[in-house]
């Protein structure tokens, strides 16, 4: 008996086989669609809307809760920047947990977008001798100051240039975002970031249902899955609606400032013009939009 080894038959068989596998694994059309979904930046408005509606439906089934997922684009004539007053921060870590709640970070395995570093006044800004696990009865501790670090929203981000699939990019308002559906979890961006601002979901993220924040942005705080990278987005779901980021509103000493760099009346412009300002690791030419300053 002569075996048919032509290319045509091979292609026919392989497609039949893959179809059979798909039906066998019980993939429905929605999952297939999601699997073949294109990069967020190449989607039309209509496609975005469909995807978001599907997502909302999926979340209702998964969490028994209604969600508002937005794909709000950047506002015109807006470039966000952040100011943090090093002379005020007392290291209470309230911002860390406000951020976790607002942005649906995994509680276990634990992910914190903000790391508060305790530093010695004698040594100045010195990462090598900083401590993130400090835990005294009361803060601030004598002889120490505190330097919270999250994504610096660089103008020349290294994380986006190394991404092999272009799953992360800089938005027109300056926020560096990630398309969690497009991320392949290679963690190149984490290696490239000099601030340790990117975090990987090593396990399936766990968030108590009652603590889920249902006000979401597609590129921000929607629940992530195992195997993707996440990071601070200046609370994209809030700031694109005009609200302050969550960490700004929780800070008990008012050390955190936020605003539009293009607005000469904004707090951030006043800080840049009148205060002593520094950025972290200036020598790397990342050009952060996150400014540390001394209010006094």
């Amino acid at each position, binding site marked *: 008996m002569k075996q048919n080894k032509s290319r045509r038959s091979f292609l026919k068989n392989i497609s039949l086989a893959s179809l059979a596998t798909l039906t066998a694994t019980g993939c429905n059309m929605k999952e297939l669609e999601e699997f073949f979904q294109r990069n967020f930046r190449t989607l039309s408005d209509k496609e975005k809307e469909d995807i978001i509606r599907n997502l909302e439906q999926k979340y209702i089934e998964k969490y028994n809760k209604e969600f508002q997922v937005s794909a709000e684009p950047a506002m015109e*004539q*807006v*470039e966000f920047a952040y*100011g943090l*007053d090093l002379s005020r921060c*007392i*290291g*209470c*870590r*309230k911002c*860390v*947990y406000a951020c976790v709640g607002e942005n649906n970070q995994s509680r*276990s*395995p*634990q992910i*914190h977008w903000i*790391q508060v570093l305790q530093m010695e006044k004698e040594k100045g800004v010195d990462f090598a001798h900083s401590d*993130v*696990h*400090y*835990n*005294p*009865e*009361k*803060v*601030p501790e004598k002889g120490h100051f505190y330097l919270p670090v999250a994504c610096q929203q660089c*103008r*020349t981000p290294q994380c986006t240039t190394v991404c092999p699939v272009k799953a992360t990019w800089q938005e027109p308002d300056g926020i560096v975002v990630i398309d969690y559906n497009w991320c392949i979890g290679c963690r190149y961006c984490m290696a490239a970031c000099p601030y340790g601002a990117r975090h990987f979901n090593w396990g399936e993220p766990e968030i108590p249902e009652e603590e889920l924040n249902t006000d979401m942005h597609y590129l921000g705080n929607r629940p992530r899955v195992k195997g993707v990278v996440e990071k601070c987005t200046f609370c994209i779901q809030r*700031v694109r609606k*005009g*609200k*302050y980021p969550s960490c*700004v*509103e929780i*800070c*008990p*000493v*008012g050390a955190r*400032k*936020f*605003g*539009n*760099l*293009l*607005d*000469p*009346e*904004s*707090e951030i*412009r*006043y*800080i840049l013009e*009148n*205060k002593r300002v520094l950025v972290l690791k200036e020598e790397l030419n990342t*050009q952060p939009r996150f400014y540390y300053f001394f*209010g006094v």
Partner: protein
Amino acid sequence: MKLKKNQNGPLLLMVLGLFIFWYSCSNQSSDADNPEINYSTEQSTVKTANITEIAVEAPPLTDGIFPCNDCHSEIEPNPDRRELVDMHDDITAMFNHDSKNRWCLDCHDLNNRDSLRLASGQLLDFKESYKLCGQCHGLKLRDWKVGVHGKRTGEWNGKKEYLLCVHCHNPHAPKFEPLTPEPPPVMQESISYMNLKVNDDETE
């Protein structure tokens, strides 16, 4: 003459070279050195609407104490500087605001206790207490007015809510009290330990 000509040749070349260098430089700078940093250019600036609309929370007056005139209208005002013992002794005990040089009537008005009083003698509502603080802390007041000292909540491009000085600083003891920090992040070592614990339920 011959010698002079030889010297002029390289000089001319240098001048030409400099000119080309200058020309290329001036061409570049007209296009902005780094197109991504354009916040200082005037065309890209915008004025956000309603930025002046600032709602201030009511001052934190102690319940049962304010209005002061409920009691003070029946008491003869005594302008003599002294330590209070019968009433407001809790304030006396905690008072730590240049306490050597100051006492109640430097800020509270002698005749109308429901008012504050500026150094000029002008009476001041408790809602405007920041003006009183600003008499000494002028730089803080300046920063507070533009939103750099203190906390703003609300909208970065619109309506904001402001806190008064006295919402964060007790006017009688303004130094910020130390806080208990939230728990530190989990140690890397503990993460693996916790994962092990799922399998065999043993405590160390």
